[in-house]
């Protein structure tokens, strides 16, 4: 049974096994490889996308649940929060190896859309599920604060 969803504004129809994780569809079917596979069990946040504007770990999201949903990946992120985060990220060179960063950015943008001027606690609770093996956490927090000033 074909499943229809929207990815980055484009209508997509996929007939993969309905239990296939959304992440597989994004990366293998659509070749949008900015979203990363990390742990496969919602423990690291590398696969974070937005579904109908909310953060979602795509590795534990069967595509059958995405019928009619609007999915945004790192490639399709736009808006004033996204621009501010991009500027802040490059401004202080947040990434080190960079593998987790698309997930970090997706969570950061979602946070700023909901909480325009986040406290340290807001940032910590929002970003807790995005693990960075390079431990760039201090720069991530600073960049979110810098982005908040821009927004």
């Amino acid at each position: 049974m074909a499943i229809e969803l929207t990815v980055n504004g484009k209508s997509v129809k996929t007939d993969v096994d309905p239990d296939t994780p959304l992440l597989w569809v994004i990366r293998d079917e659509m070749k949008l490889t900015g979203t990363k596979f990390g742990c496969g069990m919602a423990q690291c946040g590398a696969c974070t996308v937005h579904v109908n504007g909310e953060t979602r770990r795509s590795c534990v999201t069967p595509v059958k649940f995405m019928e009619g949903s609007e999915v945004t990946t790192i490639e399709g992120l736009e808006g004033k929060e996204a621009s501010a985060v991009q500027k802040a990220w490059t401004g202080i060179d947040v990434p080190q190896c960079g593998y987790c960063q698309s997930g970090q950015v997706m969570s950061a943008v979602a946070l700023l859309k909901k909480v325009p001027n986040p406290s340290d606690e807001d940032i910590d609770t929002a970003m807790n599920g995005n693990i960075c093996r390079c431990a760039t956490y201090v720069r991530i927090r600073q960049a979110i604060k810098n982005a908040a000033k821009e927004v």
Partner: protein
Amino acid sequence: MRHLFIFTAAAALLTACGDTASTGTLETVSTPAPRVQVSGETLAAPASFNSITNESERSAALFDEMFKVIGHPRCMNCHPREGSITQGDDMTPHQPMIVRGEDTFGAPAMECSTCHGSENVSYVGMEGSIPGHAPWHVAPLEMGWQGLSVREICEQLKDEDRNGGRTLEDLHEHNAEDGLVGWGWNPGEGREPAPGTQAEFGALTQAWIDTGAVCPA
């Protein structure tokens, strides 16, 4: 607790401060091991308490039987008295750390629904599953149970200021029919179900109410 994940896509090791969102200990992905010993604990039927002739004592005994469910990790994990919750049959702190949030559905950009869907989802290529149900959320702070005695929890369950404004009749309906309560008997791979069945738990709740809803000493 820190474990090593095999970071296949990057062919690198990712040190992650977490175990699974759903179960206790995470083994390396390549050598998964059984994580749960199902106890198979059952619930006694209300009629089996008829030999207790004193009604108050019978009522208290019925609550003790209900507590096999209430005190089980499937229920207790999501009724913390502090900010975060626990997970797994060994009730370890939830990984990643999460907060209840103002609406009991998590924090902005880290909602329960960031990871938990409308049903249990098996991991792909490894053992275990992430639990899910719609809705999926933490019990409100005033309904926190962890660390309280059986009697304290019993008194709390009867207190409409601390039970979501439920009458005893509402409480029975909650125990017997609520979907999220019922998830406790359908918790997905890697988690031990609550003892008995939801119908049996509902029957015990009704019998407890019918005998005066007495709390154990």
